[in-house]
């Protein structure tokens, strides 16, 4: 009997190591044609005998594309085991879960994407979605910060996001190395270099918890309204379906009502950031 907690099987189609810690996966479900997700949603990845972990979907929704993509950092049991898997192996998937980004809200707007570290993974699903329909949006900026050049994700792909110069991508690292020619410094140092139209700009931030506070401060200094700031939160999750209680902050279940939140809402919630 199938329940909320029964995973479907998915086959691993591609495995591409990104950095020493992170690996990219392309997966295809065995029972359904497509996952049918929205940008910003996540799945519960299940390794039988080890456990489950919530992982963001990193690909844009494309109705005809049977596969979806994940990018995983090894930090513990499930993620370590996942990184041992090879093409052809089967893993369990439940989802998609979460609210995802409300794309309608971004139509015709300038979008400022700000990603810290592994935050680029969920953000990529939205970036790709937007780029797929580039003409429907205004100015687009992607700011991406990492600890070191070794930690950069989707390196090969970042260039293509510039869409022949219609998108501006800026990358910074906290600590450069001998080959690094680009910017050095925390991500907030990039913000002053972006033109922000307070009426048109929507900022979307995904990164580690500490990043939010500093980035928001910077954006507020640029007079961006709270309602125009979006973010995706991380919390401990066990079920993904709003039952286990782990991700709850105040009355909100991050797995159900999030992980994407508008800052104007989030601000009212103690314990959120």
């Amino acid at each position: 009997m199938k329940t909320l907690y029964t995973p479907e099987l998915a086959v691993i189609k591609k495995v591409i190591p990104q950095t020493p810690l992170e690996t990219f996966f392309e997966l295809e479900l065995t029972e359904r044609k497509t996952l049918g997700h929205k940008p910003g949603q996540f799945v519960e990845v299940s390794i039988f005998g080890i456990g489950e972990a919530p992982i963001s979907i990193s690909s844009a929704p494309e109705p005809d594309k049977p596969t979806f993509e994940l990018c995983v950092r090894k930090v513990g049991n499930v993620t370590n085991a996942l990184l041992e898997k090879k093409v052809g192996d089967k893993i369990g998937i439940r989802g998609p879960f979460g609210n995802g980004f409300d794309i309608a809200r971004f139509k015709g707007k300038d979008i400022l994407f700000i990603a810290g570290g592994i935050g680029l993974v969920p953000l990529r699903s939205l970036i790709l979605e937007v780029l797929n329909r580039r003409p429907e949006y205004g100015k687009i900026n992607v700011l991406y910060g990492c600890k070191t050049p070794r930690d950069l994700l989707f390196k090969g792909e970042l260039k293509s996001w510039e869409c022949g110069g219609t998108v501006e991508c800026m990358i910074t690292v906290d600590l450069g190395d001998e080959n690094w020619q680009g910017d050095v410094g925390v991500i907030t140092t990039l913000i002053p270099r972006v033109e922000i139209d307070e009426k048109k700009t929507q900022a979307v931030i995904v990164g580690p918890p500490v990043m939010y506070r500093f980035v928001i401060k910077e954006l507020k200094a640029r007079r961006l309204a709270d309602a125009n700031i979006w973010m995706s939160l991380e919390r401990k999750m066990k079920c993904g379906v709003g039952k286990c209680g782990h991700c709850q902050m105040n009355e909100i279940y991050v797995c159900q009502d999030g992980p994407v939140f508008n800052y104007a809402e989030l601000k009212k919630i103690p314990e959120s950031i």
Partner: protein
Amino acid sequence: MKNYIVKKERLNDLIENLIKTNEVIAPVAHENFTAFAPLSSPDQIVWGAPQTVIPPKQFLYPQSEDLLAYEFSNDEVKITGLNTVKERILFGVHPCDLNAIGQMDRVWAEKNIDSNYPAKRKAMTLVGVDCLTPCSPEAICLRLGGLDPKGRFDLFLTDIGNSFSAEAATPKGEALIEGAVAAKAADKKKLSAVRKKRNLIFDKKEKKLLPKYQDLPKLMKANVDHPVWEEHGKLCYGCGSCNMVCPTCYCFDVQDYMHVSLVKGVRSRVWDGCMTEEFAKVASGENFREDRSHRLRHRTYRKLNYLFDKWGESFCTGCGRCIKACLTKIVSPLEIANEIYSRKI
């Protein structure tokens, strides 16, 4: 609602008969407390005081429950679902616990339906019993709306002397009581006299709630930074006792257990408690509620604020279990509300 009246001996006969064909669970003596356990004779039932150590939620949402089982053979994994449901009659459930079950019915059915709970719930017949005096010095049910069962039962018994008055809220309850010899339509007057007296006793014995019941969510919201959280929180063990014994706590943890042969395993869920250290800690080491005081606030808010707001009633039903269980006496939702109310900052 249909009303009956049934002589005590007749009810005993009824239970005796039910035991023969059903699993009948009721509070029985457990050292100086009671515990819900399968009956082998109606004489075992302890009507009234003292309260059971853990609430009846264990029969709807057991301490540990396998969510799936799987087996590996030649690199293929076979998933098998598990769902064991047993018909059960729960006898002698206090009003606070009836309310809690009613509340659990709502939360488990919200949005995504967790079929494990409703399956067990459907197979359960709930027979409540009215409390005529508080079952423990810790009880605060009258104050928090737990004393009136609000129709959340199949059958509800009230001791009116030589007989029980029995209210049936469902056809299941009607069928059950009509199985008793000489169940008659009831005398409602007597019942309301008993209830009136009951309320007076409870009002005299239970600790007062200083703020108005309806104002609790507002009071909580306004006092996120009240010193009471820190003062009480520093004496918190993070032992989760209050979570485990609460009829309206339902958080869980999920773990996989693999057989040492590595060919089969299960994924099961186990009760978890938001007061424990690692409840909100993620793999990177970040703990979103590191402070015991924040965890205490979260727990209290769930009872008196979030769920109260969402469903229009306190999710502390006032059973008093956590107040007893907490060894450092910090957790009582009523005491916390009173302290906040009388020490506005």
